[in-house]
């Protein structure tokens, strides 16, 4: 239809305008730093792709972001702001570390790794369920509940790192005893990233995409997200499904935590703030991807590339660009909806 095609083109142009404005603002920021925007762009792209080692770094960053985004697609679909994802990543890392400490030397490495993955998954899932329970039964807004749980998870990490799991003779928060090489995920020879990490991330996205598009669970989550009341009246068990969404999102976060501990080039230890903002980055990715699984793949990759490329300039620069991009797209969508309403009535 001519009208819908015209509208799609117009919407696309508006979104692009939002992105361009965001990039322009980023350029302004860079100028404010005394850096030439062109040079920075070159370094960002170059920094991410100039060598195989750099590409490996991008992939390494990509994996946890993919996992978090996958989980967040579920909660966003149900209309929830799972800001607690960071804590779920941390708890995953904590449980992973705990399991590995218990099992190292007792079981063959591959078994220990698998079980610790399970531990991380369950840890994150339970932490997510806790946020969900606070929301459903404690009437605590999921944003604050999630934030609080983030703080608690980090506090727990600090306690463990400085206390029971601390390195003997060291009173710093630099981390627990690093795990031996046997307990690292095998990497591509010569590179710093493990195929398992990336594969896990891609698998998670694929799984979530299938769930959302092809299962009753996904359909019901979507219904809940659009109208809780109508979904309830149609017979959807809203409470259990919301809890499940938080549970599975937490599970994905927990797996991200596992990757951050056992991944090929991590520090191989538990340390405070191990979640490193990957969870929040996942929120930004899903927002920018308009909650569509297909878009999450390139956008998360792009964000990971920016993160890697900006290491040379300023590690927070990535956050600025990412934030500006999401803001630009959000605002262009808002403008579009407000000032250019649909042509056909309903």
């Amino acid at each position: 239809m001519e009208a819908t095609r015209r509208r799609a083109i117009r919407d696309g142009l508006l979104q692009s305008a939002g992105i361009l404005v965001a990039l322009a603002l980023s350029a302004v920021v860079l100028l404010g730093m005394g850096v030439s925007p062109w040079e920075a762009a070159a370094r960002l792209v170059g920094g991410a792709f100039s060598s195989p080692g750099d590409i490996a770094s991008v992939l390494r960053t990509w994996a946890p972001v993919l996992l978090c985004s996958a989980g967040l697609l579920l909660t966003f679909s149900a209309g929830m702001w799972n800001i607690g994802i960071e804590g779920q990543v941390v708890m995953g890392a904590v449980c992973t570390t705990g399991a590995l400490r218990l099992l190292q030397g007792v079981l063959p490495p591959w078994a220990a790794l698998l079980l610790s993955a399970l531990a991380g998954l369950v840890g994150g899932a339970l932490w997510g369920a806790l946020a969900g329970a606070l929301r459903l039964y404690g009437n605590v807004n999921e944003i604050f509940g999630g934030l609080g749980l983030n703080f608690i998870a980090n506090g727990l990490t600090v306690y463990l790192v400085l206390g029971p799991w601390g390195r003997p003779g060291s009173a710093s928060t630099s981390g627990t005893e690093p795990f031996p090489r046997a307990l690292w995920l095998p990497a591509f020879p010569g590179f710093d990233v493990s195929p398992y990490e990336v594969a896990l991330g891609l698998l998670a996205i694929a799984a979530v995409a299938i769930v959302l598009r092809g299962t009753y669970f996904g359909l019901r989550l979507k219904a809940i997200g659009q109208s809780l009341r109508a979904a309830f009246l149609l017979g959807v068990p809203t409470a259990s499904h919301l809890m499940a969404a938080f549970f599975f999102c937490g599970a994905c976060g927990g797996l991200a935590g596992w990757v951050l501990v056992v991944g090929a080039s991590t520090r191989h230890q538990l340390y405070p703030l191990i979640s490193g903002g990957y969870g929040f980055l996942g929120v930004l990715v899903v927002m920018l991807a308009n909650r569509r699984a297909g878009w999450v793949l390139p956008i998360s990759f792009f964000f990971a590339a920016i993160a890697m490329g900006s290491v040379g300039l300023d590690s927070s620069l990535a956050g600025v660009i990412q934030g500006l991009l999401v803001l630009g797209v959000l605002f262009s969508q808002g403008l579009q909806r407000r000032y250019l309403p649909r042509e056909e009535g309903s």
Partner: protein
Amino acid sequence: MGSVLDFLAAVVAASPPIVFAVLGETITERAGVINLSLNGTLMLSAMAGFAVALSTGSLLAGFAAAMGVGALVALVIAFGSLTLRLPQVAVGFVLTLLCRDLAYVLGQPYTGRPGPQVPHRPIPVLEGIPVLGQVLFGHNVVVYLSLLAIVLTWLYFFRTRPGLNLLGLGEGPVAAFVRGIDVVRARYLYTLLGGALVGFGGASFSLLVDPGWSRPKGIDGTGWIALAIVIFGNWQPLRGALGAYFFVVLQQLAIKLQSALPNVPTQIFSTLPFPLMILTLLLVTIGNAEWVQRAIGALPEGTRRLVLRLLRGLQTTPPAGLGTTLEQE
């Protein structure tokens, strides 16, 4: 006794950032807008305040710049949610991350440099008052301003006509409209005002409480707590200020305990206040949940009355119009 007073004085001295943040956000939320970017705004305005003060040598310019930054971020929130009708949480969340990163990026050149600080200026006569004097009046202009701000906000809310209109605006935007209040315009103004106050709080951190700029900066996380304190304070200036002081007490206690228990690592104490605040939040909001109401209904009469009275004292209910948009033809 002396050490208790010293402790209280230390609490008051460290309180301006969070007091201003809580007051500013209370005003914004009373108008019906949630400014979730509080954490980022505090950091960005702290950096900006310090940077400008350092470059110009003028503390006044620093504070003004910080207020400007706070208002600017608030403007983005207001525009996004009031004009573009985007969800307030979404815009606020992105901004809180963005401003934090922006603060670190733009603040690079100022890291670790010594800069101007708000000078110590005890008030001559008032300082002499036995207990209060030492606690309240032996500080500096910014602290006095924070105390004044609490009083002024309270006066505005409960003693003035426009303040009453603000309360009405938050409770019932439709009813407020019927009474002749320009809802959108008022929301814009109060959001900007709240943002400016938050900005002032940010500057009071980098120019007073923890002078300078560094990476990471201690103010990170305070914004989130301020949001929780606004809820805890039931959107009232006095109770919110109380919550703010309570939080600072926890922080100062952490410092004290740390020196008393040198074996226990510092970070435990610095992170402890945060989960405690969240738990308090749970306590005050849980009364609203339906299953709790039913459970209370099942209690024997005497216990029920007691529990209800307790809950009502703790109870916080948001202004009914918080986060809503005014739909008009």
